[in-house]
C-alpha cells in the first residue's frame, strides 16, 4: 500500500493539470492583488466620505488579512473546485484512457487499495492546493497590503449579522482552520469526481460531469425561486467551511454540516469502490 501511495504521489507530482492549478492560482492572486490595491486606494482617498456620512472602508479595514479572506472566499466556490474535479476525475478514467488501468489491476494488489491510494493522494493534493493558496494570499497580503485585524461587516461575504472583529493572531489561526475545513468540503467534489472517473472511460467526461453537477447545484441553490431545494444540495452543506471565519465559530452547525459532507464523501467512495471492484476492464 505504501509503495502504491508513493507511486500515486509521483504521478500527481508529474501531472500537468496539477502544475496548471498552482500556476492559475498564482495568477488569480496577482489579479486579486491588483484589483484590491486599486480599490482600496480609491476608497480611502476621500471619494466615499464625500458622498456618505460613514464608511467602514478605512486604511485599517484594507489589510492583508481582509485581502486574503476575500481572495480565498471568491476562489473557493468557482475556481478551486474545477482543479479538484480535474485531478480527481483523471485518476481512474485517465489510466483507462492511456491503457494502464488493466496493467495496474493485474498486479497482486486489490482494486480497493488502488482506488483508496488514488483518493488519498487526491485528498493530499486538495489540502496542498488549499494550504498553498491560503499561504500565498497571506504572504501577498503581508508584503503588499500590510497586517491588521480582520474586520467583518454584515452583507459582504455573508459571514456575520452584526459588525465583528477577529484579532490578527487569532485570524491567522482561522486561516489554518480554513485550510482543513476547506479541504474537507472539497473532498465531496473529489469523491464525486472519483465516482465519475470509475463510471466514464475518459477523464474529460468525468471532469465535465463533476463540474456540471457542481455548477448546476451551485446555481440553482443561489436562485431565490428554488430556495426550498437548497437544503438537499451538497453545495449548501459545503459552505460550512466558511464558519471558521465567524468571530464566534458556531461549532454545533460546523460539526453538523461537516458530518453531512463526510457522509457524502464516504457514501460516494463506497459506491465508487463497489462499482470499481466489479467493473469489467477491457481497455
Amino acid at each position, binding site marked *: 500500500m505504501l509503495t502504491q501511495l508513493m507511486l500515486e504521489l509521483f504521478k500527481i507530482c508529474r501531472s500537468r493539470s496539477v502544475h496548471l492549478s498552482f500556476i492559475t492560482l498564482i495568477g488569480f492572486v496577482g489579479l486579486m492583488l491588483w484589483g484590491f490595491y486599486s480599490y482600496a486606494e480609491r476608497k480611502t482617498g476621500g471619494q466615499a466620505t464625500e*458622498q*456618505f*456620512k*460613514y*464608511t*467602514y*472602508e478605512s486604511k485599517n479595514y484594507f489589510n492583508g488579512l481582509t485581502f486574503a479572506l*476575500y481572495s480565498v*472566499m*471568491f476562489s*473557493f*466556490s468557482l475556481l478551486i473546485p474545477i482543479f479538484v474535479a480535474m485531478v480527481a476525475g483523471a485518476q481512474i478514467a485517465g489510466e483507462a484512457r492511456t491503457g494502464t488501468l488493466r496493467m495496474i489491476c493485474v498486479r497482486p494488489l*486489490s482494486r*480497493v*487499495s488502488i482506488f*483508496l491510494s488514488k483518493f488519498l493522494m487526491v485528498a493530499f493534493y486538495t489540502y496542498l492546493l488549499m494550504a498553498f493558496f491560503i499561504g500565498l494570499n497571506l504572504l501577498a497580503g503581508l508584503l503588499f497590503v500590510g497586517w491588521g485585524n480582520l474586520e467583518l*461587516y*454584515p*452583507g*459582504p*461575504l*455573508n*459571514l*456575520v*449579522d*452584526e*459588525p465583528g472583529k477577529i484579532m490578527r493572531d487569532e485570524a491567522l489561526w482561522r486561516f489554518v482552520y480554513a485550510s482543513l475545513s476547506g479541504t474537507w468540503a472539497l473532498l465531496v467534489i473529489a469523491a464525486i469526481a472519483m465516482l465519475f472517473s470509475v463510471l466514464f472511460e475518459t477523464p474529460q467526461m468525468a471532469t465535465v460531469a463533476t463540474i456540471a453537477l457542481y455548477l448546476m447545484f451551485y446555481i440553482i*441553490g*443561489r436562485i*431565490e425561486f428554488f*430556495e426550498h431545494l*437548497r437544503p438537499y444540495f451538497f453545495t*449548501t452543506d459545503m*459552505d460550512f467551511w*466558511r464558519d471558521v471565519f465567524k468571530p464566534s465559530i*458556531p461549532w*454545533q*452547525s460546523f*460539526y*453538523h*454540516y461537516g*458530518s*453531512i459532507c*463526510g*457522509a457524502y*464523501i*464516504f*457514501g460516494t*467512495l*463506497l459506491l465508487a*469502490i*463497489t462499482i470499481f471492484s466489479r467493473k469489467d476492464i477491457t481497455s
Partner: protein
Amino acid sequence: MWAKALLAILFALMICSAFYFQPARKRSLLATKPSDGPRLRLMTWNVGYADLEDDTRAQTRDLRAVAEIIMTHDPDAIAIQELSGDEQLKILLGYLGGRYRGAVARPGNADRVEAVLVKDRAARFEDIRADGKFALGATFHLRPELPEIVLVSAHADAFSAARRRAYTGELVEWTEARPEGTIVFVAGDFNFEVAVKDESHLYTDDLKHDSEAYSYLLKYFRDLGRDAGDTAINDRRIDYIFGPPERVLLRRAEVLRGAAVGRMDHWPLLIEVAL
C-alpha cells in the same frame, strides 16, 4: 472487504454525527431574566402593497383590519409606512377609537408618507429631512416620570442602495442630535439586503452600500428585531426597529405573520422592551 466495511462504518458515523450535532435553536428570549422596569411596546408596519399592484400604497379598505391588529397587540407607539396621505391617517385614527394620536410626514418627493401613532396625548411630531424625503419623529413619554422617548418612522428607497445609505446617514445624524437622556428608536422599512442565509456570494456595490448603512446604524443602535425572522415576502427581513444598545432590555420581538391584509407584502414587527 475490510475497506468497504470501514467506509460503510464511517458513512454511518457521519450520518449519526450529523443528527447528533443538529444545530440547536437560537437563544430564546424567554430565558432572559425578567425585568421589573416599565414595558414599552413598539410596532412598525409597512402597510403598502406588493409591486404587482397598480397602486402599491396602503389601501383605505384595509385600514379597519390594520386598526384591529393594532388594538389586539396594543403597542404604545406605531411606525407606519406607505400611507397615501393625511386622509388615510384620519380614517385609521378613527378606527382606533381615539386611543392614539398621530401625524404623517411631509410627502417630499415621494407619493407616500410615513406616520407615527402614539398613545401619549402630549406627543410632539417632527419632520426629519433625509435624502430629499421626510421621515417622521414622535417624541412622547410612557409615564411622566420616565425619560423622553423618540420613535422615528422611516422608509428607505426600495431600488437604490446608495440612496438608502445616504438616507440612513442623515437619519442617524438627526437622532444623534437629540438631547442627552432621550431614548431613541428608529423603526421602519429600510430595504437592507444584509441577511445571512448561509450562502456565499460575490461582492456587489449594492450589498456594500447596505452593509455600510446597516453597520452605521449598529454603531449607535441595537437591531431589536434581529431574531424575529423575516418581515416581508420572499423571506426578506427588511423591516427593523433599532433601539439603544444598553438602556433598554429586550423582552419580546415578534413578526406578526398572518397579520397582512389584502396584498400587503410586509408583516408588522412588534417589540417589547423594559426601560
